[in-house]
C-alpha cells in the first residue's frame, strides 16, 4: 500500500536532508522502514538506536503501523537545558 506522509527534520537531520520538511510518498509501513528508505536517499549516518521516533507528535515505537497522512519525526540525541 502507498502512503503519503509528512516528514519533518530537526537539528543534524535537518542539515543533512537540506530541508525542514517534505511530503513523502512511500510503501513503508512502519517508521523503521521509512527511516531505512530516507537513509538511502540522504547522507544520514545516525543509526536507529541513536534515534527516537514521533508519529503525530507523540513518541512511538519503531514498529508502529503508519497511516496515510501521518506526520513523522526522527529525533536525534537531545541536548536541552
Amino acid at each position, binding site marked *: 500500500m502507498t502512503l503519503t506522509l509528512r516528514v519533518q527534520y530537526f537539528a*543534524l537531520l535537518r542539515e543533512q536532508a537540506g530541508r525542514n520538511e517534505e511530503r513523502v510518498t512511500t510503501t513503508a509501513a512502519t517508521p523503521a522502514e521509512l527511516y531505512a528508505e530516507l537513509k538511502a536517499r540522504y547522507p544520514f*549516518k545516525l543509526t536507529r538506536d541513536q534515534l527516537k521516533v514521533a508519529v503525530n*507528535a507523540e513518541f512511538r515505537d519503531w514498529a508502529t503501523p503508519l497511516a496515510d497522512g501521518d506526520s513523522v519525526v526522527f529525533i*536525534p540525541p537531545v541536548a*536541552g537545558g
Partner: protein
Amino acid sequence: MSVFRFSRKPIDGAALRRELADPASGGYASFEGWVRNHNEGREVQRLEYEAFEELAVKEGERIVLAAVGKFGVPHALCVHRVGSLEIGEMAVWVGVSSGHRGEAFQACRYIIDEVKHRLPIWKKEHYVTGDSGWVNCEHCA
C-alpha cells in the same frame, strides 16, 4: 498559560517568579541554565537552540505536572529558550513554590533533569575557532 513554554526572547525570571506567588507558599526554588563559554575542552562563542515544539510542549507539560503530583507542590513552571544565544544568556528557567522548601528543591531538580533528558530540544555550539557541533551528537555524522 501552559506550565511549559518556549521563548524566542530573553527569559524574564523575575516576571515568571511572580506567576508562582501564593500566600500559602513559604518556599520558592528556581534553577537557571546559562550559556557557558566552554564545553568538553572547546571555547564556545554562542549557541543555537532548536526544538520540535509541538511534541516538546506536550511532553514538557507532562514533566511539570508529574513533579506537581510526585512532590505535592502547588506551583511549578518551566520556560526554555530557542534561537541564537550569547554567552551568559539564560537558556532555561525552572521555578517552584510550595508550603516548604524541601519539596520545592526536589521538584525543581526533577523538572530540569527530565527536561534535559527527554525533551526534543537540540543545542548547536559555535566555537571560537569558527566550526560548530551538535551537542551529545559527536558520533552522529
